């Protein structure tokens, strides 16, 4: 490939933006600018993605052979636990909301900042503190209970469980603060003329997510605190030997952890909604359908937690209730999928990287979602529970869904955040690597699970080896795609062509500002007179 000549942009183009308004380290570490905080979260959560990914690669390497490949069983248990904990709480939960939500919400609302900028900075430091404590626990040997920390084992495990639990508790404080901030911002900081039903749908997605964040996270905090006290002092609140009931732990744990997956997927869906409109040059097929579906998912998501417990010993009455309620939530997700597809119809589709990730999301999330409905049937779940079928299902949603959306968001808003373009060819190559790597990694896991391969098992019968090897090879392709993405994005920070205010020609608010935006977003508060995506306005070329 020909070497790109790096030309420094002409002096007049280096305007003052939020990036260079102040350049001391102190101005970054003590910033209350939502855009800088968003960038800090982006860097931190990307690092977490990398770390969680390393644990995933190691786990998959171990699974290349039926017996021990290069680590012992205890280490294996620690690694998949850390993979889960890091991915769930250091990446999936915060990434899109805290990085992109922070950066975009005020811009999309025509505001100068979020409602509580200092609290915003505090949320970042709680994230860092929580991450440090979790990683300290990892270095001290980490937990081996799985990211779900079920008692009675979690009360008895000899591993360094308490720092991991405390770290997650602290991360929960960060999430709750973020949620409060976003809800209050959406209620009180919309610019003149920006009625609720004129807001970009990404804002609705973040708003619905924030409701879950503030109400579900405290329950997790208490649950983890109970386990930590149990582990440290032997309280035995869930110990059957002294009258406790371990299933009660599962109830209060999953009461958070099921809505948590909607914390992970709702912002992703918000990104997808923005991307499909931008790259079809068309407004969403039905704005209200997306709003209702977003709020519906947030609400119904709180009613379905027992579907993680069908085989736990829970009563059949509860199982029936949870199973039926779990089917309902799929209705709202399906409404969204159909709305996105209908948006494509008669659109003017442009296959840039964000749109490639959109198609990846559409396909993979749909499969993930449908397998979720299958798992919600109690009778089927009895066969699939705790097998690779479940592992495949949630990775289709979380990686095929949320991570693809994260990459879409990154490729869509990178020019706005940093004022630079990235090389199109490499972004397309990376997208194909990530997508095909994903399919190769996780499709075999449906077969593995259905054939009986249990999850979290260090060794397995030899007849499963072929599928495991295929799956591991796929994981290398995902890693390659992500490393490539990191390389060209970081390189583009320095050598990318200047992006201009609106390189995609999108008619929504955040593209009205320069790229990167100035420190205080808008000199005067803009006034809104129409909906978020009016494509009869003139936009720049791509």
């Amino acid at each position, binding site marked *: 490939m020909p070497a790109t000549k790096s030309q420094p942009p002409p002096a007049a183009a280096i305007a003052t933006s939020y990036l260079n308004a102040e350049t001391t380290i102190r101005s970054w570490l003590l910033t209350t600018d939502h855009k800088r905080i968003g960038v800090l979260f982006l860097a931190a959560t990307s690092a977490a993605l990398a770390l969680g990914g390393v644990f995933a690669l190691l786990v998959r390497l171990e699974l290349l052979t039926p017996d021990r490949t290069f680590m012992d069983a205890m280490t294996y248990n620690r690694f998949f636990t850390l993979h889960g904990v890091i991915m769930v709480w250091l990446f999936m939960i915060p990434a899109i909301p805290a990085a992109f939500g922070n950066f975009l919400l005020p811009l999309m609302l025509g505001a100068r900042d979020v409602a509580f900028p200092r609290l915003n900075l505090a949320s970042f430091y709680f994230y860092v503190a929580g991450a440090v404590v979790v990683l300290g626990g990892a270095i001290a040997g980490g937990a081996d209970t799985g990211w779900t920390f079920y008692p009675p084992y979690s009360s008895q495990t000899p591993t360094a469980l308490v720092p991991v639990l405390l770290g997650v508790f602290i991360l929960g404080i960060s999430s709750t603060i973020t949620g409060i901030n976003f809800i209050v911002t959406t209620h009180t900081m919309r610019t003149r003329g920006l009625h609720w039903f004129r807001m970009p749908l990404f804002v609705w997605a973040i708003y619905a997510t924030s409701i879950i964040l503030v109400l579900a996270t405290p329950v997790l905090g208490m649950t983890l605190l109970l386990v930590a006290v149990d582990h440290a002092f032997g309280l*035995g609140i869930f110990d059957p030997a002294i009258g406790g009931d371990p299933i009660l732990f599962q*109830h209060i744990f999953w009461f958070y952890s099921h809505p948590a997956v909607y914390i992970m997927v709702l912002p992703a869906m918000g990104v997808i909604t923005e991307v499909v409109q931008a790259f079809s040059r068309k407004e969403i097929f039905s704005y209200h359908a997306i709003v209702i579906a977003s709020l519906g998912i947030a609400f119904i998501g709180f009613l379905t937690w027992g579907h993680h417990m069908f085989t736990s010993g829970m009563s059949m009455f509860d199982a029936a209730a949870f199973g039926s309620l779990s089917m309902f939530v799929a209705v709202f997700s399906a409404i969204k999928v159909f709305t996105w597809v209908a948006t494509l119809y008669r659109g003017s589709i442009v296959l840039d990287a964000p749109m490639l990730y959109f198609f990846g999301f559409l396909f993979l999330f749909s499969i993930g979602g449908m397998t979720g409905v299958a798992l919600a049937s109690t009778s089927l779940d009895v066969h699939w529970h705790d097998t690779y079928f479940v592992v495949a299902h949630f990775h289709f949603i979380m990686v095929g869904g949320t991570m693809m959306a994260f990459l879409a968001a990154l490729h869509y808003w990178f020019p706005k955040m940093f004022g630079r373009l990235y090389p199109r060819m490499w972004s397309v190559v990376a997208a194909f690597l990530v997508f095909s790597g994903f399919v190769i990694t996780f499709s075999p896991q449906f077969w593995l699970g259905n054939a009986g391969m249990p999850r979290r098992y260090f060794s397995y019968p030899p007849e499963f080896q072929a599928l495991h090897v295929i799956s591991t090879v796929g994981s290398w392709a995902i890693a390659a795609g992500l490393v490539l993405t990191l390389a060209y994005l970081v390189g583009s920070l320095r050598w990318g062509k200047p992006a201009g205010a609106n390189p995609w020609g999108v008619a929504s608010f955040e593209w009205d500002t320069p790229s990167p935006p100035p420190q205080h977003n808008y000199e005067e508060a803009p006034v809104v007179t129409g909906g978020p995506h009016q494509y009869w306005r003139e936009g720049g070329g791509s």
Partner: protein
Amino acid sequence: MKTDALQAHYEDLGKQTHAARLGMWIFVGSEALLFSALFTLYAAYRVAYPGTFGEAAGHTDLLLGSIMTFVLITSSYAVVAGLDAARRGRTGRVAPLLAAAMALGLAFLVLKGVEYTIHFRDGIFPGRFYRFEAFPTDGARIFFTLYYFMTGLHALHVAGGLVLLGALAWLARQGRFDAVYHTPLELGGLYWHFVDVIWIFLWPLFYLLR
């Protein structure tokens, strides 16, 4: 006339105050969910051990518990009276009223400490340390474990509230509140009343349902 500094990203002070109030309410809602996990455990274990829980509740000190309820209710009254005084411009009364609320809150904690000491003397400890001979069953052990956890967590919240009230009283003495500006007083009050509400539910669950 005192006012809150209008922060640069707000249109006007009214919006800023509304935002602060909304934020505090959402925080109170999230704290309610924090306790809800514990109330859930109580409810589920009560269903599992209906007779035992009732009997165990008979071993808590009803008199002390009832006095504590009265003390907290009255301290909430003192806090809201302080806020009312500020709203009506009678700023001199704010600090004394907050001090009265703090004294009552402190009395609550002292009584709690007395109660715990009585329980320890009987051998009622949480979890695997439980050795109450008059009632050695599992259900009673679970009851008292929950009792310690829930009332203990509540007491921690009361202690935090005392610090908060102390800070507000000091600010009031500095003359920082008046009829126009008293937002921190309002928000601090919300927290204190919330802590009172939690006790209003803890009292019947652990003392009255015998």
